[in-house]
Each structure stands twice: as C-alpha cells, then as structure tokens.
C-alpha cells in the first residue's frame, strides 16, 4: 500500500519493542464478538492510482459540466471564473496539509490570511468585524439567528419570503429544536412583503436576503430603523457575494449581522460544497459571535503576530456553555476567497460586479422579447425571475436535453406552494457570452 510506510520487518521489530507478539494483542480491549477476523466483506481490495482515476473519471464523465454548455443556474451558487493562481497556492502543502493554527509560532501563514480574510469580509459587508468563516451561508444564517437570541434574549424570528428556502429550512431545523418561534413568510416573488409590520417586542430578529431568492433588490434602511426601534436585530443574508461590488453594503443600511455565502469568490461549484460562510457583525456583539476568530497581538520580541483569540466563547473551553458547537471552519475555502479577492482588488471586484449585472440586464432584455415570457423583477443584480407560459420544471428538462442549463425552477425549491410553477430563476455571470444567451433564447423559443 503506497500510503503506508511500515514494512513487515518494521512491524515485527516494533512489536518486539512493545513486547507483544501481534497487532491483535493491541486490540485486546475490543469485545471478542466485535473483533473482525479479517477484512470487511463486500468491498474491493486496494487499487493503484490508474485504476482509481479511471473509476472516478467514469463517474465524472456522466455529469454535464458548467463550462461546456450555455449555463444559467444560480439560486445560491454561481459559476465564476477563478484565476489559476488561486488553486495553485491552495495546493501548497503548507496550507493544504496543516491543521487549525493552535500553535501560532508555526502557523503564522494561516493566521495572517485569516486576519486578512476577516478584514476583507468586514469591508465587503460594511461591518465592524467578521469571523474566520463558517461552513456555508445557510448554517451561518442559523448561527446568526441563535446569536441574535443570545444578544436580546428573545425568541421570535421573522424570515423574509425572499430568503433562500434551504436557508429557511436550516434555520427551522437548527433553531426550531431550541424551541424558537420561527415565522417564515410566504415566497415573496413579487417583492411586496412588509416585514416592518410584523415586528414586535417579542421579536428577536428579522432575516432578509439581498438580492432575494427571486433576485429582487431592496433598501433595508427603513426596516433596520424600525427594527432597532423595537430592539429587533436585523440579519442580512447575501448569497451572491459578488453583488457587494455594486450594491450598497448591508452595513450601510444598518444591518446588525451579515451572513454571506462566499462561494462565488475563489471557489468552484463543487456540486454544492465545500463552500464558505462569511459572518460579520458590529463590534459591540463580538463576544456573542460564533466561530473561530483570529486576532492581532505581539510576540515576546514585540513584533506583530496573530493568534486565535476569544476562544473562551468556544466549545473546547466552554463546553455546553459555548456560543456554538462549531470546531471546524472552512479554512481552505476562506483562503481561496482571500486570494481571489486580493487578485480582484477594488477595481476588479467592482468591474466583475458590473459585468455580471450588464450580462444579466442584456439577457433579461433578450428574454423579454420572447412571446409569453416576462421578467418579473424591477431591479436585480445577476439573477432574476421570469414567468413562463408553461411549467418551468418541464422547460428546464427539455432544455437540458438540448445541453442548455437554463436555471432553477422555483417549484424545485417550493414544491408545496401553489402558483409558482411557471417561475424560473435565471442567472448570468461573466462566463456567459452573448452566444450563450442567444442559445438560451433560441432554445426557449423551440420548447415553449
């Protein structure tokens, strides 16, 4: 076995040193009935690299990849171009094969990029501080709801009808078990809900999303003012982080906690994971924030250095009194995010956001020209909702058969809600050429 360096000669000599005559003797605490006499049945023996590559390549070849077809699928994960240097740095063993930086003297590399990541997230979201990443946007949202409850000791939660249903479900599952009162609003595909009207003195927080699931944009300043007047925390969720290059920051609107899915920057689609949750808040709430934090300090010589800090919030110190049970973050995805965002820089991020928006505007115009098709949105960033004259799910299937991946039917996310069957979410990013868009228009015209 190529990964196992011990030879039989090594094993014999080591057993002699230990003073037992077989490895089995080392497993003496295992109940006899549970000791397997040999390898587990039903699984193949070890394979060489070539065989493993062939096996997995065969599976991979059965999937239709985003880069090879006109591709407009979004709904919380977006196909962007990631510079080649990002992945090359990620693959450096010093980053890839190191652990959580518990020994700061030999992990300043990891710690410094985490500090840079936290700063980038704070800048993007317009907030004071950010943590060193969460599993993803959805779990980050649930953590935010729990954090809000820790801050204001209230129990009622209002979820916007523009919130991604996966996020809503994760909040319902995770916070519901804690006994919180979750009030999810109906799908707000018309961008018409009035959340301020729902807030009261029992409300812990209200969770909104921008752009919303349906692509709608809103200014939440008034909502934040109304919420703060009632002691309610406002959690703003961003599932397409590139939008923050063009749209006003949640911080500037008054958000108390901002959660983003960071996949769009630095990370591939990966069929949904691993992704990276961004989590930012105001200074005053920092000790209620979940997740790992990197802080600046000095070393014995007075030089600037970085350490994990405020770990007294965390499970390995506080155990059942911790702010969260989280132990693992999404370090490598955060590194990808940080490197890509460093390459983009101010000019690149703003430019990328503008290209995304321009492509979406262009596509929306083209689609509006199709008979029976209308764009639902007034404003949007790089994704919008269209109303079709037929069921969207069927149309998407027919287009997939033509090797066009047209978007996400709203009914896939809301199978139980009536009246949404003809809605389709369509995303356009910098990867979409005008030819791609024309292919979608032609394809739609054919199948409608």
């Amino acid at each position, binding site marked *: 076995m190529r990964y196992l*360096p011990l030879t039989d000669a*090594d094993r014999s*000599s*080591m057993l002699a040193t230990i003073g037992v005559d077989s490895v089995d003797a080392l*497993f*003496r605490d*295992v109940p006899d009935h*549970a000791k*397997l006499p*040999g*390898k587990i049945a039903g699984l193949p023996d*070890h394979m060489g*690299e070539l065989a*493993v590559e062939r096996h*997995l390549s065969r599976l991979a070849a059965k*999937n239709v990849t985003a880069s090879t077809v006109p591709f407009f699928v979004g709904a919380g994960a977006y196909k962007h171009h990631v510079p080649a240097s990002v992945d090359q740095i990620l693959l450096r063993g*010093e980053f890839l094969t*190191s652990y*959580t930086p518990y*020994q700061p*003297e030999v992990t300043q*590399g990891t710690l410094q990029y*985490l*500090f840079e990541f936290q*700063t*980038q997230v*704070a800048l993007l979201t317009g907030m004071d501080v950010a943590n060193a*990443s969460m599993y*993803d946007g959805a779990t980050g949202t649930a953590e935010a709801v729990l954090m809000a409850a820790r801050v204001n000791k209230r129990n009622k939660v209002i979820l916007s009808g523009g919130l991604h249903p*996966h996020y809503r479900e994760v909040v319902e599952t*995770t916070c519901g078990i804690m006994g919180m009162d979750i009030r999810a609003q109906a799908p707000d595909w018309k961008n018409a809900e009035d959340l301020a009207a729902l807030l009261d003195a029992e409300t812990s927080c209200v969770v909104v999303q921008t752009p919303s699931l349906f692509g709608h*944009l809103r200014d939440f300043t008034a909502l934040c003012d109304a919420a703060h007047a009632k002691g309610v925390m406002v959690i703003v969720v961003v599932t397409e982080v590139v939008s923050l290059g063009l749209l006003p920051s949640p911080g500037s609107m008054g958000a108390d906690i901002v959660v983003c899915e960071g996949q769009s920057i630095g990370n*591939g*689609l*990966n069929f949904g994971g691993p992704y990276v949750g961004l989590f930012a808040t105001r200074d005053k709430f920092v000790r209620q924030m979940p997740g790992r934090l990197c*802080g*600046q300090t*000095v070393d014995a010589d007075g030089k600037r250095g970085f350490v994990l*800090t405020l770990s007294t919030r965390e*499970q390995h110190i506080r155990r*059942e009194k*911790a702010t969260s049970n989280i132990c*693992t973050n*999404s370090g490598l995805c955060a*590194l990808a995010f940080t490197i890509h965002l*460093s390459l983009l820089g*101010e*000019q*690149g*991020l*703003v*430019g990328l956001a503008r290209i995304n*928006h*321009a*492509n979406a505007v262009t596509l929306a115009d083209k689609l509006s020209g199709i008979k029976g098709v209308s764009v639902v949105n*007034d404003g949007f960033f790089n994704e919008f909702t269209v109303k079709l004259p037929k069921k969207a799910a069927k149309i*998407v299937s027919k287009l*997939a058969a033509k090797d066009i991946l047209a978007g996400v039917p709203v009914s*896939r996310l809301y*199978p139980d809600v009536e009246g949404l069957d003809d809605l389709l979410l369509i995303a356009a990013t910098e990867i979409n050429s005008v030819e791609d868009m024309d292919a979608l228009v032609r394809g739609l015209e054919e199948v409608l």
Partner: protein
Amino acid sequence: QEEALIFELDNPGAVGVDLPEPVTTKTRLGGLSPRPGVGLPQLAEPDVVRHYTRLSQKNFAIDTTMYPLGSCTMKHNPRLNEKMARLPGFGDIHPMQPVETVQGALELIDQLAYWLKTLTGMPAVAMSPGAGAHGELCGLMAIHAALDARGESHRRRVLVPESAHGTNPATAAFCGFTVDTIPAEENGRVSVEAVKAKLGDDVACIMLTNPNTCGLFEPQIKEIADAVHAAGGYFYCDGANYNAIVGRVRPADLGVDAMHINLHKTFSTPHGGGGPGSGPVVLSEALAPFAPLPFVVHGKDGFDLIEHAKDAGKAQPFGRLKGFHGQMGMFVRALAYMLSHGADGLRQVASDAVLNANYVLASLKDVMSASFEGPCMHEALFDDRFLKGTGVTPLDFAKAMIDEGYHPMTMYFPLVVHGALLIEPTETESKRTLDQFIGTMRHLAQKAIAGDLAHFQAAPRLTPRKRLDETQAARKPVLRWVKPAPQAVVAQAAE
C-alpha cells in the same frame, strides 16, 4: 522574512485581473445607487502570488514534518484525491442542475454511502453534515426526532463523559438537551456502573467517544450500549477516533445508534488549516427514518435526490442541516482514498495507526509519564508528572519541540489527566521518522529533567515569531486591519 498585510501592500492603480468592458452600461438596480467603493487594496498578480507563497512558508504541515497532534489524525493527504476532486465532472457542476445531468455525482455519493455503511455495519448514513460537530448535531437531532416520534419528548438528559471533546456537550446543549457528566475512572475508561448510576427515564442518549480521547478503547462499550438501550436511551458514538478501528471493528457490533465520521480524519481529506471538513453520520434502524434532507435514492430512471419531506416516502426527515447536498468535494477525496486502500488497506490503516502509537508509548514511557497502562489505540497519552519539579510546563515542552522541527502534540487535552500530552503519529509515518521523533523526545525529556529550564522557557527560537501574547489578543481584541489615519501613514513612510 517579514510579510506585510495585503492591505499594506495596496498599490492603487495596479490590477490583478484583466476584465473586459461590460456589454452594456444600462443598469436595473431597482432604485438602489451603486456602491461608492469597498476599500479593497489593489495589487498585480505577481505581488499577490508572492505574498501568499511567502505566508505559506510560515506554516508547519504534514507535507513538511511529522505533525503528531493528538485527536486530529494528521495523516498524509494524497494528491490523487485533490486531482480527482478537481475533475470538471465533480468540481464544475452546480447543485441545482437537473438531476438527469448529475447522475455521476449522485452515483458517487451513493457509492461513498455504501462504503461507509459497509465499513460500520450500519444500515443508513446521513451525508450532509459539514464537519464532525455538525455530524454530532445531526445525530442528536435524529435522536431528538426519534424520541418525539416515540412520544418521549421528556427525555432531555444527555450523558457525556468527562473526557469528551468539548463539541459533545456543546452539541447536546445546542439541541436543547441538558448535559450530565460521567466521571472518568482511574484507568481512563468509562465504567458501565458509572453509566448505570446516571440512567433514568429522562435520558435521551449517551455520547461516548470510542476509542476515547485518552486513546483507549472502551472495553465495556457493549455493556454500556446495552444498559442505555435497556433504559430507553440511544447510543451516540463520537467517531473522531474511528481511524484506530476502521476495518477491524464495526461500530454496529458495539451497539451504536449514530456515529459521525470525520472524513478529514479517518479518510484523509485535507485539514486545510482548519477546514473544510465533512461529517457523515451512520444511523441504526431506529434512527434511520429521521435522517435529514436531502438524500440520494435509487429511482426508476437512475439516481434521485430527495429534497423535500413530501417526497421522502415513509421516512420522517427531521429537517435540513446545510445548504445544498453536502461536502461533495470532500466526498470525492474520501472515496478516492477508500478505493486506493480497499478493504485490505483500510484494515491495515487501523493496525498501523495503533502499532505506531504503541511503539511511541513503549519507547517513551520510561522517560515521560504515561497516563495509563498500554496498550493504547491510535494515540499515546502522557501527562506532566515527568516534568514535576523541573519548572518546565507542557507548553514549554511543546514549544521546545518546534525548534527540533516537530509540530507539537495536543496539550492540556483530554482534561481528565493533569498536563496532558497527547501524541497521535498516524499510520503514514515511517518507523524511521518515529525513531527520530522518539530520539528527540527522549533528548528533550532528559534535558528537562536535567534542569535546563532556560532552554524550554526561551523556546521556540527558530520560528518567524517567538511566543505570542494571547492574553493581550483576548483582552483588547484587534480582529481586523484598519486603514491608518493619514498622519500615521506619513510617520510610517518616514521610518
């Protein structure tokens, strides 16, 4: 060499990407004004690449040195797995594509699930948890749901041994359970008597790590499981140390109802400086119906993805734990690792991991104080008795290891012994490397005992930073860079 923060390297006017002009300048922002600016620094690609390359050089890693961090299973991360995860057919597919366009991805998840179920002997597995602690959450939620379904919602007490990872009690609390701690025995194990003394009809489950955090297999595990079951509770097993028994012991045979598997430990998906992880949870028949959404099933036209309770048939999923379908990238790596090892190789993994740990234990126990009689499982636990009177703390000792080129072991965990030093070599270290490590440890132990306190207190000497002031970091947290006021910039430039 010093490396400034990326923000301090800002070079306004430089670009790190070249983007085309937008196809239109028309905007449809629904009345919002474009953001005036973000405040990000600008650098050209060469400067970004050099910055992060140089940062990387400040890290220790498995690729460069033995990294015997107890409980963390820092084993070799094969690059084949990275290559496979980057196949466009896995890396470049969207979770919301039509299922007929991702049949290979669903098949992969199904195959990985088959391996996990077969290895553990369990009938079901929930794939979506994002990490070990997330898996614990999944397991405890399934237990919660099962108890509710049984009409026994009053069962809200969870038994957790003293030696448990902090995630165990934190997770239990996170699910609204109360935590009741089982004291550790003298021999580092949990006794069936201690458990029985705590059982009652308000007990939801026990959370037991096996092999436990002292690196020991719990010999009474089956009796404990039986007792808990008899009392109407479930047995959640923390699988963080599954590396020690994979292929040799099936958790199902120990009476386990739920166990998370850290793919980033046992199955070698890279730790990446803290994540991402992946924590699938195997489930017993009793808990299987409550597994969360989504999951893969064999449909009539291939594989189907069940995303909603209404499509779940007889199952009663307790909800959803994560956006989309789980850590696909980690699944590919883990399956590549499993295929590479096979049934024979995985059994050898456990054997060699345990052999390596016992070899370290046997070779050091005369100069360092072993906390418990051997044999141990995959890690060897020492405590600070051997340092008594020397003035050298476990922390000092650990820092001295750094100057010898080793990442330290885990310190001060588990909490059940004083000044714990937990060494996990893993199965991918050679005897030659272990012998060098043992030689160094003996040398350091002798040096400490000989009274060379100054050597330890001054360590590490050879690192980019000396010991860092963690107290200052926590007392006045500085969690982000802030652009210096113009005056400060001038002062800095004048230096």
